[in-house]
């Protein structure tokens, strides 16, 4: 009973922080002209809210509450800092309104996902400044130490200020590049959340949920852009399978073995509609293709009746845009069902140079070897895969397969 109430509070808090944090940081960056100060002020306000709201209840106007706290904490501090003295009047005014400019959160996202920042910094900053995660929550979600995350954030904020990374919507010429950075960050966030979720690691914030929420936000602000829509469809298709991914003991179930009646077919058809809408914009891209691939699986009644030929065609299309060895590896799995295990294994062996340290390479190779009756080699491959992943659910799956060999 206690636990459920706690969960409810946590998810209510998450929803509010997700809604308010980015808008608040954005507004403060606009008013104060300094990202470091703005971000720190909001983080302080969120920490206070985390202490008080579970006890006092979530205020009716949480955005105004947070702004008031940030403002009160800041006024003394800012009065002493010559850089901000002339900004104080504007700041004092801001405390009386909740509204911030429409695009503040979007500007903030582009800033946090600027190509001048490393991918890990982009992810950490987006989680903190845009989604309102605390440093501890980020560390927990990314399986990193709090100190390392704190350091990363401090340096990234410093870089934004010292290198003059601007707080604005990119120019039209820059939009494609900048949007694809944002999408890459969101997809990374989603995968981190998706991979570590289920299988018993309870967390106060759901990375995958936050990533999907932000992606939906981007599609609303850029209705003429097909790739955000493609990414959202891809995320939704994966989320649609969430109920079938783990068995009651918390063990991972592969796509091939999932109970498809537990998939959310409403979400699947909504996601498929998104793919169609994106396609109508006639600018194919990697996220749209990956979504189409996921849709092929989602629409199949079973693993066996999946349209593998179509999947092969889609992978060929994807490879022209993203010639990566991992994509070729995934394509080889489709090849297995179209041309048989020998053809698939030949493809996979070609990737040994590139993917020697990738656990899924060895796992897939192991499966193919087993299909060809080469048990000892299959065993060796699965053992190799085991040494290369620390993910609890995946290790457990590999160990079960090894036990069967």
């Amino acid at each position: 009973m206690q636990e459920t109430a706690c969960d409810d509070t946590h998810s209510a808090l998450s929803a509010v922080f997700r809604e308010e944090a980015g808008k608040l940081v954005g507004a403060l960056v606009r008013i104060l002209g300094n990202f470091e100060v703005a971000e720190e002020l909001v983080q302080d306000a969120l920490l206070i809210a985390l202490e008080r709201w579970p006890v006092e209840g979530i205020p009716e106007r949480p955005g105004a509450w947070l702004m008031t706290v940030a403002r009160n904490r800041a006024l003394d501090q800012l009065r002493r800092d010559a850089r901000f003295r002339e900004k104080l009047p504007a700041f004092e005014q801001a405390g009386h309104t909740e509204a911030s400019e429409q695009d503040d959160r979007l500007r903030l996202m582009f800033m946090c996902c600027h190509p001048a920042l490393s991918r890990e910094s982009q992810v950490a900053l987006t989680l903190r400044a845009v989604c309102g995660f605390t440093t501890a929550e980020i560390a927990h979600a990314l399986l990193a130490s709090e100190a390392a995350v704190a350091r990363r954030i401090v340096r990234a904020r410093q870089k934004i200020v010292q290198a003059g990374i601007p707080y604005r919507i990119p120019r039209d010429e820059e939009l494609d590049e900048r949007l694809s950075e944002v999408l890459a960050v969101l997809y990374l966030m989603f995968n981190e959340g998706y991979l570590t979720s289920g299988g018993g690691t309870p967390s106060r914030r759901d990375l995958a949920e936050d990533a999907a929420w932000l992606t939906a936000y981007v599609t609303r602000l850029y209705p003429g852009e097909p790739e955000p829509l493609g990414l959202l469809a891809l995320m939704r298709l994966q989320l649609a399978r969430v109920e079938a991914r783990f068995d009651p003991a918390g063990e991972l179930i592969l796509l091939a073995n999932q109970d498809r009646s537990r998939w959310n077919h409403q979400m699947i058809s909504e996601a498929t509609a998104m793919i169609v809408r994106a396609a109508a914009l006639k600018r194919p891209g990697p996220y749209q293709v990956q979504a189409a691939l996921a849709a092929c699986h989602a629409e199949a009644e079973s693993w066996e009746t999946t349209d593998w030929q179509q999947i092969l065609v889609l992978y060929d299309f994807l490879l022209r845009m993203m010639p990566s060895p991992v994509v070729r590896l995934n394509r080889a799995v489709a090849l297995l069902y179209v041309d048989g295990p020998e053809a698939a294994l030949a493809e996979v062996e070609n990737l040994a140079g590139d993917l020697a340290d990738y656990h899924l390479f060895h796992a897939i190779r192991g499966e193919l070897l087993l299909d060809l009756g080469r048990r000892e080699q299959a065993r060796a491959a699965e053992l190799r895969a085991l040494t290369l992943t620390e993910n609890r659910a995946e290790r457990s799956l590999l160990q079960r397969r090894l036990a069967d060999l």
Partner: protein
Amino acid sequence: MKYVLLLFGTTQDAQRWEEMTEEARAQQYEQVGRWFAEHHSKIGGSHQLQPPHTATSVRFASDGQTYVTDGPFLEGNEVIGGYIEVNVADLDEALLMAKTWPGRGTVEIRPIIEH
């Protein structure tokens, strides 16, 4: 003859500078100031740069694409060929200029320290 003095350092040097006390740094600046005073008739424009982690690099690859990465360009056999001081609104404008540079190799964009 004219030259440009490009002051290289190792990453350890940069680290040491970051960790110096205010006092030690003031002493260092004093020595530099004395050197500048002694040679001032021969010196034109100069700048000390912010530490390496504030750098952003734009690489022109052989496939015609440009790649933007976080950090300075650290390739052993590369040397700095020039130093162009620009005064623009923000990093995006600096990036636009760097990307249209009709050269080869890499352009490192480093913000300066304003004293």
